[in-house]
């Protein structure tokens, strides 16, 4: 990318932004950092960011931000190429870190899915699974969320520039919810909420709006999911409802924590 007006350090680190199967929301989060965007472009050479620029430079990249899940044969090859081209690889968003909502196919018959959407499934190239980037190549840091949080993205970029680890807490949404001064939606209203087992990062948005957390940041660093299930049942959720609740935007991650496949709420011991 060309030189902006601010004085330049002699060798700016080179940034690449890449995309696999996803909705574009996480890379759009970078464009939503309006106040920081021109500043970031001064600190980093934006070498590869197709959504934002026609000026494409080849690798190597000092920092690669990767959005989306691996879901086609072409992805398998490209993810390795990007890893080889990148000194630091950071995955952004639930698709890249857990396979995304499209990982629901992992628990279904993909042939049937193809036939549902396409008259000629034979024209479509797809894998039977949608998997996170880390299932294929080593990843240096994973930023969670569907979508990621703007402040956390800035923190990751800032930490990279400063040569330190990103300060992204691993605790549950409840911490942020208390800090925000919210009344607990479960305790006060009996609203089913995944806050106790969900990774912080959104700022406890859903409870702030009177809604139960629906787990879009995936599981927290440590969870006791079996302890939450009776509370969800008490608040009126059947096993089917709980299955769908946990198996949406981070289906593979919650499945790993629960030690069970979608549609079952047996087997209470976390893996």
């Amino acid at each position, binding site marked *: 990318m060309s030189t902006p007006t601010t004085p330049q350090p002699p060798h700016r680190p080179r940034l690449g932004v890449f995309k696999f199967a996803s909705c574009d929301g996480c890379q759009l989060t970078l464009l*939503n950092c309006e106040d920081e965007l021109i500043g970031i472009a001064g600190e980093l050479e934006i070498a590869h960011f197709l959504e934002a620029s026609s000026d494409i430079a080849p690798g190597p990249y000092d920092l690669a931000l990767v959005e989306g899940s691996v879901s086609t044969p072409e992805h398998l090859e490209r993810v390795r190429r990007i890893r080889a081209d990148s000194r630091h690889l950071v995955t952004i968003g639930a698709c890249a870190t857990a396979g995304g909502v499209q990982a629901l196919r992992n628990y279904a018959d993909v042939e049937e899915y193809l036939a549902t959407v*396409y008259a000629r499934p034979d024209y479509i190239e797809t894998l039977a699974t949608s998997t996170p980037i880390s299932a294929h190549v080593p990843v240096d840091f994973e930023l969670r969320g569907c979508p990621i949080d703007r402040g956390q993205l800035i923190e990751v970029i800032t930490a990279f520039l400063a040569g330190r680890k990103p300060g992204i807490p691993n605790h549950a949404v409840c911490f942020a919810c208390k800090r925000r001064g919210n009344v607990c939606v479960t305790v006060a209203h009996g609203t089913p909420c995944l806050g106790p087992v969900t990774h912080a990062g959104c700022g406890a*948005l859903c409870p702030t709006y009177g809604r139960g957390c629906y787990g879009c940041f995936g599981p927290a660093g440590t969870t006791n999911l079996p302890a939450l299930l009776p509370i969800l049942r008490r608040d009126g959720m059947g096993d089917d409802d709980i299955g769908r609740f946990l198996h949406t935007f981070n289906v593979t991650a919650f499945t790993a924590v629960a030690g069970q496949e979608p549609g079952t709420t047996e087997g209470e011991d976390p893996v």
Partner: protein
Amino acid sequence: MSEPVTGSRVLRVPALTRVEGEAALHLRIHDGTVTEARLDIYEPPRFFEAFLRGRAHTEPPDLTSRICGICPVAYQLSACRAVENACGAVVDGQLAALRRLLYCGEWIESQTLHIHLLHAPDFLGHDDMISMSRSHLAHVERGLRLKQSGNAIVELLGGRAIHPVNVRLGGFHRTPTRAELRPLAERLRTALDDAWDTVRWVAGFDFPDAECTADLLALAETGTYAIESGVPTVLPYGDEPPRSFPLRDFRDHVTEEQVPHSTALHSRLDGRRHLTGSLARYAVNGHLLSPLALAAAREAGLGDPPLRSAAPGAGRGEVCRNPYRSILVRAVEVLYAVEEALRIIAEYERPAHPHVEVPARAGAGHGATEAPRGLLYHHYALDGQGRITDACIVPPTAQNQGAIEEDLRRLVQGGLDRGEDSEAELTRLCERAVRNHDPCISCSAHFLDLKIERPFRQPWRVRC
């Protein structure tokens, strides 16, 4: 891809940038004539319509939002309308006004993003916004400020700008107080000036001549510029009069077909190519814009929009069919959305309940709204427990694909006729032709493989 013809050459140009989506463009040129222009979309299939089956009727707003991070509100509200239609629920009054306010926020941020970050660099000869900021810093900063004000609306009403959390069937989880909306109004007053300046700025761009010959399709609503609801209305190319059809018949008129080598389904409207989005909305509903927005349209050189209800003998106004000039309509729509947001905030009274109940029942429903890029249609069938048994989603870009391909053919042909024969020139023309329509193929790694097949290499012509 088509089989190469003898003596043909295949040109690869990497990366269609500043758009949403992964596409391969295939051009066949024979004796200086474009015989085929095909935009093949490679979007990794994500199977939304398949995994929606079996989910609860409350889930489509949040689930389908994930189809597109650029226009999640469009997906959420089209989904809500379709499910509410199936369940016989009606959302009106202040709740409907709040939905329109939320949608105005998305229009402002999404259209502004396209104008400043994706489209304007084409007119000013830049690769991107950052390089544009060297010579047009004030314009870039204004664009970012305007985009932020749109995001601020979505963030306040929805919690966050991408995949907002506050939208639900029947309305919202929580409605704002009047006091909470006040700072937003302050910000939007600045945005109104910024939107005016944006209109004046893009009005000064140089617009090549071009005509899109597709039928124009937009929702129409009585007495207001349709955004979050309306009846599908067609303004055909040529002299045929406008026509409308009920939303429940949408799939009888707009049919989708699958073509080889593309994961996007292609649409036809009554067997013909059609276009949705800004140009179509301005043609169908322009006369319902506010006086301020109409004044801006005039200042932008758009001409008076046609009056659908014009009395015999009254002028039909002017239908803008130049895809390059769609940026003007987008700028006018941003101005209108800011003004509309201010009006809704001024008239807002907090409703007694944040949502109406939408009890599940067996049935089918249809919903459509005007996403920034055009008409977005959802259809769901539910069983007695409120489980989804069938889902169908028709996004605007699938509908626009035929019109985009026709544009490509015409613009490349025009380039060839003018002697613009180099790969670089033709690629630039192709990219501009595609970007004019702001496709959002939501989407995958973005690249354009430009493959031009020619029986023989045409000699370069020196242009004076």
